């Protein structure tokens, strides 16, 4: 069943049109990878889905709600859409547990004990049960990104949007974050991932979407898009990255 339906989505920054009419549907439990050269609009697409960027046109429907409607209570909607950023964006003044529980306490109004319990469980899910009391600057990049994932998971989202989650990591730390994604996939989490990790996409993704210049050029199962691309642009991009 479709949980996310994007139709004719457009976004312009001044005179520059970054998204030129995107149509994309994501089903429940699906892991969809968005790939494409930098500047192709992948991150903007992701950020339009939870309206961190305001779309210029088109519509986004999520879980029966029209995201793009003015009447939609954005803060309520965002609880059920987790987001993970390239640069982690952990709160430096809070511990790992504090990072994970802030929204639980302030948005969902959970009492501290309950929030802490949920937070510890979320940290355990990403393999960081023992780091609850650590501050972000005491953690490696891979650990920080896993805390950021736990922060998104703690709210019980129906989908998690990943914006290049491994691009800022040293190569030896990428695996630990991808392992978390694999684990989430096994637990049936719906995920939309902007990433250049094509090898991971080939193994784990249900579908790969190739974007270029603000449009979806090609989409399909990884075996097709990565294995036997139809479009020349896709072929060139994939060949370059998998070399």
């Amino acid at each position: 069943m479709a949980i996310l339906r994007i139709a004719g989505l457009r976004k312009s920054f001044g005179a520059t049109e970054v998204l030129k009419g995107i149509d994309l549907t994501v089903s429940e439990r699906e892991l969809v990878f968005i790939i494409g050269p930098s500047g192709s609009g992948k991150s903007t697409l992701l950020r339009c889905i939870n309206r961190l960027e305001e779309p210029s046109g088109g519509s986004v429907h999520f879980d029966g709600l029209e995201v793009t409607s003015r009447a939609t209570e954005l803060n309520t909607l965002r609880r059920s859409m987790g987001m993970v950023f390239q640069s982690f964006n952990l709160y430096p003044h809070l511990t790992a547990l504090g990072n994970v529980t802030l929204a639980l306490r302030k948005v969902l109004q959970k009492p501290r004990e309950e929030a802490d319990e949920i937070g510890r469980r979320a940290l355990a899910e990403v393999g960081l049960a023992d780091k609850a009391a650590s501050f972000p600057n005491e953690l490696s990049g891979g650990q920080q990104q896993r805390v950021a994932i736990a922060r998104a998971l703690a709210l019980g989202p129906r989908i998690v949007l990943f914006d290049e989650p491994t691009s800022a990591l040293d190569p030896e730390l990428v695996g630990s974050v991808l392992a978390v994604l694999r684990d989430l996939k096994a637990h049936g989490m719906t995920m939309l991932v902007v990433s250049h990790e094509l090898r991971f996409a080939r193994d784990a993704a249900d579908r790969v979407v190739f974007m270029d210049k603000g449009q979806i050029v090609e989409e399909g199962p990884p075996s097709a898009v990565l294995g036997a691309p139809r479009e020349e642009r896709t072929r060139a991009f994939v060949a370059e990255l998998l070399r």
Partner: protein
Amino acid sequence: MQPMTAWERFVETFFKPAMLVQYWPEILKGMLVTVEIAAAVVVTGLALGLALASLRAYRLIGVNALIVVFVDVFRALPPLVAILLIYFGFPSIGINLPSFVVLWLVLSFVLAAFAEEIFWAGITSTPKGQWEAARSTGLSFSQTLAYVVMPQAMRLGVPPLTNRTIAITKNTALGTVIGVGEILNQATTAQSFTGNATPLMMGAIAYIVLFVPVVALGRWIETRFAWRRA
């Protein structure tokens, strides 16, 4: 009678025992007044500065223009001028304020003006990603400001704020020109009665006794808040 030696003259001028005994209660009274006003200025000045910086974060055009005008005026104006203007000028338009209230208000406004700028600098230097991460978890603008951005802005602001706060609380001495009974006022009054500088020296010592611990505290706060910067 033998002429005084230089040392005796020095002691007679600055540390005359009879005067030390006679005037220490006055100086002590002045210290209490100084502490009271300084504490009130710190509390209201920092709170007002924080409130103004928070308000400015909402970027309401008219409001922000007013904040900037307020801040620039009180950063530019010598506090002594504002004190004299309000204390001697305002009664003519029907506003009579007690001298300690005038001193408290002016110094609070000056501290608020500087504190606003310091907090504001902290707010604008907090990375955009912090806002985005917080908003993506459903926190509202105000919650993000209060729980994510402000704590970081305040931490960044601690070193300049401590310096500024110390500088402005020392300005309580300006109260002497409008008759607030703080340290300097007690000291100059005694000095004019006696024609001797001993009360002034007592006042100077009183300031050092009061403010050296404050300076030390400021240094401690600075090191305390510096270590965890990511």
